[in-house]
């Protein structure tokens, strides 16, 4: 039910399980080695920086997704939430929405309000699922369909270009040569891992996902736990949306977060989080996202077209889930 096995080092003879447990780490190292051999200029600061910035949004969304999956659910609406947050922020700091003219206050609201909205959208998903007992796929489908439409209606479907260093610092500013968004990502991973491994909420979450009926009987408020999981996922999706538009200096409601739900689910699955709930690892999700990013980078850097990269990704997802099923169960 819970991830007891991952808490202690596996038994010496239990090589197969150890292999399954560290599949994602091994895959990651293998990819790095492969790239050192075949990709020119791989071991450069520039390459590392590019990969880290590109993986940021996937990691942030995937951490939220891991919480939802651990609780026994799924969230298809993460991309739409990103689009709404990404559409709201420029509308707020340009004063088009709410009419805030003070630049500092405008930027603060432009960061805080989208996060709050993201949390509310997550709560909305959670409410549909816990209160009406609607399956997570269907319940989050509503926001998946509606959310992007709302973002498009807000911006009239047009590209919003802006140049606001005071807002864009969340993506573009650098500390010791490393983009701030990387620190944000690391903070999210660290806090997520702490929440899942070291707090009561984390224990409750895994119990609710592993066996909801049993969790209810021992007195866990499963509804509340799930509601919080969706809210976390919503806030993190909104954060990822803000980072994307800040990085691009433009917000396109048609494209922000498009298809990211699959990357996020795949990252969690590759990392070893059980898709049926009850077993999750944030560090695994982080490595899973890195594997996805590295595979894409390896293919692109070696001249393989983007469309073929899609096929590769599909094969990797199937293999990852397959390996998980074979060894863990």
């Amino acid at each position: 039910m819970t991830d007891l096995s991952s808490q202690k080092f596996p038994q010496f003879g239990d090589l197969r399980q150890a292999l399954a447990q560290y599949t994602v780490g091994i895959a990651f190292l293998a990819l790095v080695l492969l790239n050192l051999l075949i990709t020119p200029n791989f071991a450069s600061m520039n390459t590392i920086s590019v990969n880290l910035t590109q993986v940021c949004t996937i990691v942030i969304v995937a951490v939220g997704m891991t919480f939802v999956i651990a609780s026994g659910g799924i969230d298809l609406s993460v991309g739409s939430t990103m689009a709404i947050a990404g559409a709201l922020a420029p509308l707020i700091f340009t004063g088009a929405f709410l009419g805030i003219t003070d630049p500092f206050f405008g930027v603060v609201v432009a960061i805080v309000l989208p996060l709050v909205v993201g949390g509310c959208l997550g709560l909305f998903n959670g409410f549909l699922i816990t209160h009406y007992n609607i399956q997570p796929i269907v319940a989050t489908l509503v926001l998946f369909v509606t959310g992007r439409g709302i973002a498009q209606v807000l911006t009239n479907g047009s590209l919003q270009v802006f140049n606001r260093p005071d807002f864009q610092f969340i993506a573009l500013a650098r500390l010791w040569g490393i983009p701030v968004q990387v620190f944000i990502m690391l903070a999210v991973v660290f806090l997520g891992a702490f929440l899942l491994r070291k707090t009561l909420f984390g224990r409750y979450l895994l119990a609710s996902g592993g066996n909801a009926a049993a969790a209810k009987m021992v007195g866990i408020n499963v509804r509340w736990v799930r509601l919080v999981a969706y809210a976390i996922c919503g806030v993190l999706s909104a954060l990822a949306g803000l980072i994307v538009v800040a990085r691009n200096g433009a917000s396109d409601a048609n494209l922000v977060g498009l298809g990211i739900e699959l990357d996020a689910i795949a990252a969690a699955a590759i990392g070893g989080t059980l898709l049926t709930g009850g077993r999750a690892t944030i560090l695994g999700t982080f490595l899973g996202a890195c594997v996805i990013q590295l595979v894409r980078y390896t293919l692109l850097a070696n001249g393989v077209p983007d469309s073929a990269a899609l096929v590769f990704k599909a094969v990797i997802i199937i293999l990852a889930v397959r390996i998980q099923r074979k060894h863990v169960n």
Partner: protein
Amino acid sequence: MSINHTSVPGAGGARDPNNMRAALGKNAMGLAVWATLLLMVLFGWLRYDNFLGAYNIFSFFQYNAIFAAISLGMCFVIVTGGIDLSVGGAAALASVLAAMASPYGVMPGIIVGVGAGMCVGVLNAYCVVQMRIAPFIATLATALASTGTALLISNNQSVGVSYETLFIEFGQGDWFGMPIPAVLVGVLFVGGWLVLSRLPLGRRILAVGGGEDASRLMGVRTDRIIFGVYIFSGVMAGLAGAILAAQFGAGQPTEGTGWELFAIAAVVVGGTLLTGGEGSVVATLGGVLLLGLLFNMLNFENGKGWISLSAYWQSVIRGGFLLVFIVVQAKIAQGREAAKHL
């Protein structure tokens, strides 16, 4: 996943007085869809000129035949408790291949398109049945793979169909005043209704959705049934792809995104539970027409000039409808649970 409140697939269950409310609820959803549909048509007829004109009706059915096809396949997958997110990608791949085969004639074009869809279906079935991978993740992966393949084959561009053969006719022509794709899909819907509601096979399909283990113990070959529904869904997606290529005169590798969600929405609006075990082909058709009609009426309403809603409102309104329908459905399901425990 949440706890599944799967009910026993209801052979004769309606005669049990305790299940009266349940039976009422079940029919109520299908009735509600068709009643809403009727009201909308009435409203449209009274409000807009030419709403029931030959041109609008023709283009409505022509346009929605594609969505009806994938929704029929989706309906069968969903009643077994599965889901197929690959229909959009499969249709895109099929449209590219059908366009490439169109110089060899009408039938080769259709067969290649349907065959391509079928291959994706077989892949889905293999992943779900043999590899025991959760349907939504398996079909999401094959969706990626088929979109990627379609883009690779077509070199990221749409592929023109041959105008030498009558392939275009298949998408744009008519039989006795009705668009050919709509007639074809209509016949398939009648067949689907016969299978699901009138034949022993339909009972078995519903039984698998109601409880896979139980039906296996009863002697139903559950693996075969699940294999079959995914292949059927793939075939329907392939057909939709062939129709798409014939209608637009080109295979479209980038088309098809979001189709799976339209199909799921149509099935859900039609009252089919996503937990499997029950569902209706007729209500699914109602769901398709209802979602299509919303878009059609939005166009007419914009034409009136009172409001000016951009096309982006379409997804907001569709999502709103979806929300209302699933909440009502959930209420009915909860009432049914209560009725069961009387």
